[in-house]
């Protein structure tokens, strides 16, 4: 019943529609890097950017007078048992001024474990202005049974931070990745 002309038209159309299907499957995956880029630009979800590597000019007279309060939180994600806390619960910094604070972690279990700290900044809007030069969250932490470490965080608050933000909170959630660690390659984390 279907003649040759129709068959030909069908083949062409089906090919096109199939291409759309494959393209949209790819688009689903493309949303992952797109989302990361958007989060990076907007600070969506309080995601901080990676290690700050650019040159820092720091001269005392350029520092602004305003002070910004930075608070530090530490929490264990579900199932994590380490003793994890911020040594300095809060500091006051001037925009552009580099500060070093530290966190404390102790493996209280009797076996070696691996932890990974994931940062988040509130309010979200402030996330992109918090620059980390050095952070324990850039690496996984391997702790032997009973081992305790002091972990440093060197950061500054960007001078461009809007005037209305006077206080920001940096929270670290510590995840137990002992199991995953062997299974997966370490993913680039911030």
């Amino acid at each position: 019943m279907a003649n040759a002309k129709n068959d030909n038209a069908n083949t062409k159309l089906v090919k096109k529609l199939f291409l759309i299907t494959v393209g949209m499957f790819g688009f689903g995956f493309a949303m992952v890097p797109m989302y990361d880029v958007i989060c990076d630009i907007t600070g969506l979800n309080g995601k901080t950017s990676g290690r700050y590597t650019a040159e820092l000019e720091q001269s005392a007279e350029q520092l602004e007078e305003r002070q910004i309060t930075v608070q530090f939180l530490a929490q264990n994600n579900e199932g994590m048992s380490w003793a994890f806390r911020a040594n300095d619960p809060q500091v006051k910094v001037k925009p552009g001024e580099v500060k070093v604070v530290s966190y404390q972690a102790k493996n209280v279990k009797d076996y070696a474990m691996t932890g990974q700290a994931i940062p988040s900044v509130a309010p979200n809007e402030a996330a992109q202005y918090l620059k980390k030069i050095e952070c324990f969250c850039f690496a996984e932490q391997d702790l032997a049974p009973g081992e305790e470490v002091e972990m440093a965080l060197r950061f500054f608050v960007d001078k461009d931070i809007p005037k209305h933000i006077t206080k920001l909170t940096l929270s670290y959630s510590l995840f137990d990745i002992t199991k995953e660690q062997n299974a997966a390659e370490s993913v680039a984390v911030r």
Partner: protein
Amino acid sequence: MSAAHDDHHHGPAKGLRRWLFTTNHKDIGTLYLWFSFAMFLLGGSFAMVIRAELFQPGLQLVDPNFFNQMTTMHGLVMVFGAVMPAFVGLANWMLPMMIGAPDMALPRMNNWSFWILPFAFAMLASTLLMESGAPNFGWTFYAPLSTTYAPDSVTFFIFAVHIMGASSIMGSINIIATILNLRAPGMTLMKMPLFVWTWLITAYLLIAVMPVLAGVVTMMLFDIHFGTSFFNAAGGGDPVLFQHVFWFFGHPEVYIMILPAFGVVSAIIPTFARKRLFGYDSMVYATASIAFLSFIVWAHHMFTVGMPIAGELFFMYATMLIAVPTGVKVFNWVATMFRGSMTFETPMLFAIAFVVLFTMGGFTGLMLAVTPADFQYHDTYFVVAHFHYVLVPGAVFSIMAACYYWLPKWTGYMYDERLGKLHFWLSFIGVNILFFPQHFLGLAGMPRRIPDYALQFADFNWISSIGGFLFGASQLILLVVVIKCIKGGKKATAQVWEGAQGLEWTVDSPAPYHTFTTPPDPKLIHDQ
């Protein structure tokens, strides 16, 4: 051999082989519709468990984990097993007859796209018997509930979704190819019945978003079994990403379930109002606008995840914009009925109930779109009431209306009008008793997906459950009506309904196994 060959041309093969190997659009449409009805009863029985547990406060019948499995399976089975296949079944049966085509464009793929469905749902349903239990993370399967904390059966769920997706995509490609390539001479695009138009647009939505659904479950599969971290925060992923990808699929999906319903109602109302459809062109453009807008509103499902205020405002206004083309449609249906010579046969009753109750569901949708208000309504029974109003007296009523409307064409006999009306009124009363109190429950703060609740919610839950049992039981009447109608009754004419217009009413009732093997007379094709 030659006898078998002849069979192929003049009528269906005999026995089971007819159904297994069929490439006939009418047979496949029938298969889809029966499958969908079976799934409707299965998903409905899960809903009965839910309503029975919620009949009283406290935990009486099932434990909370099983309750969660019920809500999950109810949603999945109803969305992917009942509503979507029902519309595909209607499309298979009616589209070729409406556009004067001999069959679907790709009949063998048509067979395949139906026959993988029972396997997908057998796989999904089998999880109920597994040690870990069925998926219990809700039909929206948010990560990490569906990854880190999922039962082992989640893998079966993932593959079931893959198969359903493949089925829908093949079905859609087939529908697009049929509509674009097989229209009878004279059947221009703007002369197509609106059901054909809405399905064309729906099919495009399906091939655009079902692959994204396949993508998101594939990411879950990788997170669960291959150590990736798409949604795992510990590895640098983000659970909120899941919600974005899911709802990028999920929002067009809700229009996939309602656009063909618009088409059905736009066919039925003119017939029983004995007037032409008011504003045909605007209906087509409204459908296309709704389809386009459906891609840019997804984040209204996730206002509370912590979005920048600009994002919340954008998604709020974009969502409210959808009310405009939807309003156009509702006005057109009302204008079609205005000063029409209306009669109220069962399909018309369902269609009118659709217009009224779907509009109510639409209004609660507008309330939910208001960002600040949504923080109050989010994840409460108000949301449950909203989407059940658009899906049950919306999509499901339109499917029932379609079944009553075209049953005489399918079987050759008139259905029992008295039983049909009984079915309608019990459904109509039941559905309102079932879902209307849920608005109040939600506004008072009852969360969704809980097996137990605070005492102040007891009365409305009790009423809602009564409505649920009434609605559930009255669906068995539909089964009786359909079986009676297949067995016999008053002979139906070709026209069936006095005011019916369109090519499908020019062929005999029941429709012969092969129709329009030669294109219809172009004079039969009217302006809309």
